[in-house]
């Protein structure tokens, strides 16, 4: 706990320092400008407190076969650290009731556990998996975990129209050596700071995947959420669609709903 709170303070200081440059950032170096954009994205999402939603993942291969997985995802905003999230799988049948708990951290490896109902046990998951595929899909775990500002270094590329409005294109390079990517190029609109598109570059710096965000909706707490995400793998021809429904904010959730004991209670 101690180390956590001191980390919180450093992170806060860090953010405060950064924001004081915000005004000048738009005319600063590409790194400053890129960071400024990343902070705007982060800030736009701040204060959602918690969120519960249903998600359906549709996996497709080059042959046109598809497969569906459905799940409920709960997430909790944590001040000064990455978010906590709990994913409960409802289909396919064989993994129904399996629950995945993760604590995202800015720079440390995330903590992850999986509850296996058939075994009635909680298993901790190795920390080197963040670049691996999530549920066999084209999403890597690192693509869907919460996007902390400190996870990347940034540089500003250009202004471009994104989601029908003036927007920015920035490049971000993962800090973690275990990431599967050398860089990502992010398109974001400059008004609501919604992501339009992300391109992922693999270890040989070639375009691997493109993630497009569609069907945005603004919820009562002013937060915008994309309800359809399309991940296309350019090298294998496989793709995954992630659709969201029943998005609810401000639910009655506490830290206690996100611990290892909670995992066993999910159903």
């Amino acid at each position, binding site marked *: 706990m101690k180390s956590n709170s001191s980390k919180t303070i450093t992170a806060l200081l860090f953010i405060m320092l950064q924001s004081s440059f915000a005004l000048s950032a738009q005319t600063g170096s590409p790194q400053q400008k890129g960071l400024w954009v990343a902070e705007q994205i982060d800030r736009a999402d701040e204060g959602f407190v918690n969120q519960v939603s249903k998600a359906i993942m549709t996996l497709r291969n080059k*042959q046109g076969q598809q497969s569906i997985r459905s799940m409920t995802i709960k997430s909790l905003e944590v001040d000064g650290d990455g978010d906590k999230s709990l994913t409960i799988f409802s289909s396919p049948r*064989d993994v129904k009731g399996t629950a995945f708990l993760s604590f995202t951290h800015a720079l440390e490896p995330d903590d992850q556990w999986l509850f296996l109902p058939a*075994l009635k046990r909680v298993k901790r998951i190795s920390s*080197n998996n963040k670049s*691996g595929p999530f549920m066999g899909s084209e999403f890597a775990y690192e693509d869907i975990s919460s996007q902390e500002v400190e996870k990347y270094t940034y540089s500003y590329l250009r202004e471009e129209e994104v989601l029908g409005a003036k927007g920015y294109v920035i490049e971000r390079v993962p800090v973690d050596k275990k990431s599967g990517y050398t860089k990502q190029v992010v398109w974001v609109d400059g008004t609501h700071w919604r992501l339009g598109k992300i391109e992922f570059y693999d*270890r040989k710096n070639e375009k691997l995947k493109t993630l497009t965000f569609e069907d945005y909706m603004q919820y009562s707490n002013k937060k915008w959420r994309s309800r359809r995400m399309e991940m296309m793998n350019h*090298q294998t021809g496989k793709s995954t669609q992630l659709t969201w429904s029943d998005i609810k904010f401000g639910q009655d959730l506490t830290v206690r709903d996100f611990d290892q004991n909670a995992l066993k209670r999910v159903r």
Partner: protein
Amino acid sequence: MTMLDRMKKETFATRWAILVTGHPLVFVFLGLCLAMGLGYGGKFITISSDYRYFFGEENPQRLAFEKLQNVYSKDDSTLFVITPKDGEVFKKSTLAGIRFLTERAWQLPYSRRVDSITNFQHSYAEGDDLIVKDLVTEEELADPEKALSFKRLKEIALAEPLLRGLSINEGASVTSVNVLMTFPGKHSMEIPEAVAEARKLVIEFKEKYPGHEVHLSGDTMLNNAFNEAGVKDMTTLTPAMYGVIILIMFILLRSVSAVFATFVVMLLSIVGGMGFAGWMETPITPPSSIAPVVIMTLAIADSIHILKSILEALRKGRPKRDAIVEGLRLNLKPVFLTSATTIVGFLSLNFSDTPPFHDLGNITSVGVAMAFVLSVTVLPGIIMLLPLKARKADDNLSQWGSVMGSWVTQRRGPIAIISLLTTIIIGLQIPKIELNDEFIGYFSEDNTFRVDSDYTMKNLTGIYQINFDLKSGESQGVADPAFLAKVEEFANFLRDEPMVTHVNSITDVFKRLNKNMHADEEAQYKLPEARDLAAQYLLLYEMSLPYGLDLNNQVDVDKSSTRLTANLGFVSTSEIIEIVTRAENWLKSNSPENMHTLATSPVIMFSHISHRNVVAMLKGTLLAFGLITLVMILALGSVKYGLLSLIPNLVPIVLGYGLWALFVGEAGFTIAIVGSVTLGIVVDDSVHFLTKFNLARREKGLSVDEAVHYAFENVGGALVVTSVILVIGFAVLMLSAFKMNYILGALSALTIGLALLIDFTLLPAVLSFCGQKKTKK
């Protein structure tokens, strides 16, 4: 055509000759323009480096393999085989080297996945947790205190069915880094580019980690070997051919101008043919890379026929222009006919199931057409412009022809019977030809790919893979214990096959996970008992795997089917087909219907290539035979002699295949096209012989035997000369780095030689017989 011929033949040829010799510069210029126009296409020539191009787009084995690749993953392997010189893989320097190579291989162009003993995802239980991590990590190598001992690492690796016999040999003295690459297939340099980078990496590795030997094998290297063999053939065979041809021409023609003119015709024919390939965007492959040599061989025959006549006329004291007109007058028709039949033969290659043969046929056809056009324009044009003197000739050949003529007609009975009997006996041997398309054997023994692949097969693992797409029959069914049990049974069946060096089955992952989840108890190294348990183990394991090392190339998106791969060592095509048939039958009699499947892979595609080509080319060759016989009937103006021409056209091909079966035995898919290729060529001899025979019968009113004598005296010499050139031309192909070209060259040379023999023995004997019967009646 015959009527037209009779009316205009002489006049047209003469008129044409007068026109050309009257404006030599104009015709040389026009010929050059035509060749250059076609030749400009040479700019667009590309070299193919994709073995898939050997298979038509409708090829069922190719379609099956592409479907498998679409369901799992489409990748070509590049295999780095590493041998530490002290014979010990499990020591710091070697393991550090493997780690280095593994890391760096992710950055090779088109690389999508890298597997080695160091990044193998070793899973084990630690307390209640499942740990999944690299078998050999960097930190552990740096600090041995923390690490498992090398002895322990060796035990783990050798106990792991996914590694032993694939990534590490039994003696732990040879190991591999396997890089899976996905080539977008957008341009022809993708594979050479990847190979160049892989070779650079090998050099860097050897510098950094001395004391290691590295061999490169795998699909990418195979593709590249096709590419390199094609390039090598073009750059070595063609110059070799030039040398041989110049030598022959000097001996035969003994005139610098004549040799020069022939050379220009040859060169421009090749430029035309290859330029055509460029315009048509035909990628060059080893089979089509020999087109220049084939065009050269065929082009020279046209020129030689014409030049010999011109020189002959000069010798008789006729002025140069007259001599040229005479040469063209005598040869325009036969040269046109022989070119036409050759083109028919080569165009019939389009029936083949292998697109590179279509290319060879089409390029050669254009080259032969060019050779004809140039022989009647540029050739007389150049001769007209340059000084030409006839040397004293030795008439040995025509004297010898006359002797041969009487010898044959006197012994026509025995000759006909002996040759027909021999043909039948030898022809019956043809089914003994064993078709082997083990593709490593396509390359000569000094080829790097061959050397490295042989090394890999001897010391590490077989590189011939066969895949089975095993379907559980329901969504998420791979976790069904009954299905898994069947898959394991099948994997064990394959492991018992003597040629199988490794089987990669998902069941080994499940067994290991089951053990890990039971605190690593050895007794629990077995398939999970319940379906939900298996599914959840798999989910947990998948969530623990790092970038690129997922199960997507082994399990489909719906988790309803799994890919099982077996590696085979040194096996011939027929052995592969036997193993595959046994495996497919095993599935049929031992597993539920949803698991019945056909094995797919490149080696299986190659295993059927010969058979499919033989069947397809049978049609093509028959059609070519029909067309050529029709041409003969029209050209000779006689159905009888047209049909008789079948004997000298068919017998050499039967004899050629038969002798090959007797003395060589083994062949590959090229065997299917030799019939068509040689047909168009051997027919030339009978065209010349029968035309002269016919002329003697009809215009000179000679008896059959006298006509045979006449034909011998008049074309005997020329036939020997052209046959020798053709035999040498095809024999040059035996220098090819690509075994299929070697076979094509050797068998064609043999067949052409036999054709000459038949034309001088069986054909006149049969002609003589036919004439005899008529007179008796």
